[in-house]
């Protein structure tokens, strides 16, 4: 799940389903046992009621059993007529185990099952009243709960009565309950999950607006801003307060860094200025011996090298801080490439490398920082010439592609090893020094890092493709406008 909101919804739905399931199980178990208790209570009171009727009839008539036409003993017809309307299974037996009466439900059973029922009725329970309800599963027949009750009040004419009931009706009630729960569950879960999702969304709304504000603050220029801390001291308020503390510390260290870069540039550049001033004065004096001049020229080169390194470091330090600013204006990139190209041609001629510059016929106007773009173009061209052996070729091209200005510098030079490719834009990265022309001074190692920053600060991209021994192509894409 991508968002906390989604996860919350899933958790919520899971918890809901689980609790409903537990509820349903508990309800099912409770309902089932209550139904069986009802059933048991019913057969017990039935047994007692029948026993009462039989005892009453005995007191009124003194006789309960007569012979039927086949000569078997049966209950007298008046009593039998009363018992005929009793539902469920009811058997009345004599003391010697003869069946005196069977209710209609009992009679509707198959022969084998009826015999089993009779056997159950003749199992004495050893009590003077109704036994505890028992459960009996008839082979290939219904399951029933039954009680046995002796009827001593009937003057010995009656042995036992059996009252029993099929459990099917009880099971049916419980099954109906389960169906109802399932339907309610299915109907209820969808809106419940939707509502849960909505609640999660509402609860997380402040987090979303917080994210927007944090993004605005973190862009580097708005570090002085703070998140509003809500009045309620809830988790979000604590989060906001913690973030604010973090920004206070970040801001402090940024201010320190800024002061450091300002101090460093001043403290390092002032002595450089002093050295340079001295060297320049001496080197332009008319009557210096050539050896002294040569030493001064070397010093001057070193001063420039240090200045360049210092400027690059400071530029990157400010870029890290998000504070290196661009002075943008609409510029026809052809001017910049042409100018850098002229310098490139001179460098190429010196290195014995061919140079080709292709410019489009129409202006390529982009809003850029002119001096930064010049630096970018020169750096790439200079690099290309530097890593191309005598006799090679450097091609510089400016064009439009896909609504972007595209500047390409391709060479047929030594190329870059695949393992080094991801690192070419790293600071202080340098190709294996053995492979550059020894006559040349090594660069600062910051050139490509700065190129990358310049391209990206303009909202553009810089890419490199290379094959060792075949050459390297740098491509800079800048968005128009």
């Amino acid at each position, binding site marked *: 799940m991508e968002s906390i909101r989604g996860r919350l919804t899933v958790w919520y739905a899971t918890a809901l389903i689980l609790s409903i399931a537990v509820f349903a199980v508990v309800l099912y178990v409770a309902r089932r046992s209550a139904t069986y208790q009802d059933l048991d209570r019913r057969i017990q009171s039935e047994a007692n009621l029948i026993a009462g009727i039989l005892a009453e009839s005995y007191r009124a008539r003194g006789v309960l059993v007569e012979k039927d036409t086949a000569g078997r003993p049966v209950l007298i017809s008046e009593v039998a007529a009363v018992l005929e309307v009793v539902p469920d299974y009811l058997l009345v037996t004599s003391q010697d185990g003869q069946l005196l009466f069977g209710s209609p439900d009992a009679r509707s059973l198959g022969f084998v099952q009826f015999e089993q029922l009779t056997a159950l009725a003749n199992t004495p329970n050893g009590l003077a009243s109704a036994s505890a309800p028992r459960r009996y599963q008839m082979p290939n027949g219904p399951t029933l709960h039954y009680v046995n009750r002796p009827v001593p009040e009937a003057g010995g004419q009656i042995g036992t009565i059996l009252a029993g009931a099929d459990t099917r009706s009880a099971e049916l009630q419980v099954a109906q309950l389960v169906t109802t729960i399932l339907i309610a569950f299915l109907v209820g879960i969808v809106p419940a999950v939707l509502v849960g999702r909505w609640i999660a969304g509402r609860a997380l709304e402040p987090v979303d607006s917080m994210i927007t504000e944090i993004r605005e603050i973190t862009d580097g220029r708005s570090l002085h801003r703070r998140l509003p801390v809500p009045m309620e001291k809830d988790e979000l308020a604590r989060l906001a307060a913690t973030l604010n503390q973090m920004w206070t510390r970040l801001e402090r260290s940024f201010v320190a860094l800024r002061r450091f870069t300002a101090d460093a540039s001043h403290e390092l*550049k002032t002595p450089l200025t002093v050295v340079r001033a001295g060297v*320049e004065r001496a080197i*332009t004096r008319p009557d210096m011996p*050539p050896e002294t001049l*040569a030493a001064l020229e070397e010093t001057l080169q070193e001063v*420039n090298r240090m200045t360049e390194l210092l400027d690059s470091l400071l530029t990157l330090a400010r870029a890290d801080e998000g504070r*290196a600013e*661009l002075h943008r204006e609409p510029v026809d990139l052809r001017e910049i490439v042409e100018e850098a190209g002229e310098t490139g041609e001179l460098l190429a001629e010196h290195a014995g490398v061919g140079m080709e510059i292709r410019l489009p016929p129409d202006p390529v106007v982009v809003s850029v920082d002119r001096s930064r773009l010049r630096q970018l173009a020169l750096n790439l061209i200079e690099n290309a010439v530097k890593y191309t052996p005598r006799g090679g070729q450097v091609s510089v091209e400016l064009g439009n592609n896909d609504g972007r200005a595209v500047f390409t510098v391709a060479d047929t030079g030594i190329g870059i090893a695949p393992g080094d490719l991801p690192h070419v834009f790293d600071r202080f990265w340098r190709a294996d020094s053995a492979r550059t022309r020894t006559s040349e001074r090594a660069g600062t190692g910051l050139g490509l890092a700065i190129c990358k920053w310049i391209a990206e600060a303009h909202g553009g991209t810089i890419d490199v493709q290379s094959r060792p021994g075949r050459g390297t192509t740098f491509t800079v894409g800048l968005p128009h406008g």
Partner: protein
Amino acid sequence: MKILVIEDDKTVGEYVRRGLDEAGYHVDLVGDGDEGLKRASGRGGNYDIMVLDLRLPKLSGIEVLRTLRDRGVGLPVLVLTAQDSVDFKVQALRMGADDYVTKPFAFEELLARVEALGRRPKAIAPPTLKVNGLALDTGSREVMRDGKRIELTPKEYAVLEYLMRHQGRVMSRTLITEYAWDYHFDPGTNIVDVVITRLRKKIDHAKEPKLIHTVRGVGYVVRA
């Protein structure tokens, strides 16, 4: 022309003072912002240009600039700064500075900018520079040798102009590069050698006397 230089570093200040002095300016040098502000807005001043270091004791360069502009003093100001960040420069320009030079600077660059602010013809450079039959018109950027026109690329022209302006003096490769490449390009190779080779082909080839001479390990000199 009078120039007020406000710079707390004595060596740098003295270097600027002497250099401008040699270029024919009258220069006063002060070491802090307070004093500089007094001089610039006081009556006896009458300066034509101010060269202002931004980091000064007592009163910072930015404050000097702001106070000056608040008082309605329109004196052109050239700012010296060690900061090369754009926002710092933009801030200085917004405060009323007219131009800036980044430390460490080549004196030629400072001089060029002071001259531009003074809006006067280049006193040290006559419109046409001449060395023994070679003529360079700084206005039209035309170059002739013995009356024949020579076509030069912009960089070739810049290098030649620089050498001719300082004719008879050995100019180091670094100084030439800085001048021809706008002071902020260090190619790290002797690119000037290539330009000189081209210039020799166009100017000295099959001609006598040779005008461009090499000084080994240092640079070049144009002399008759």
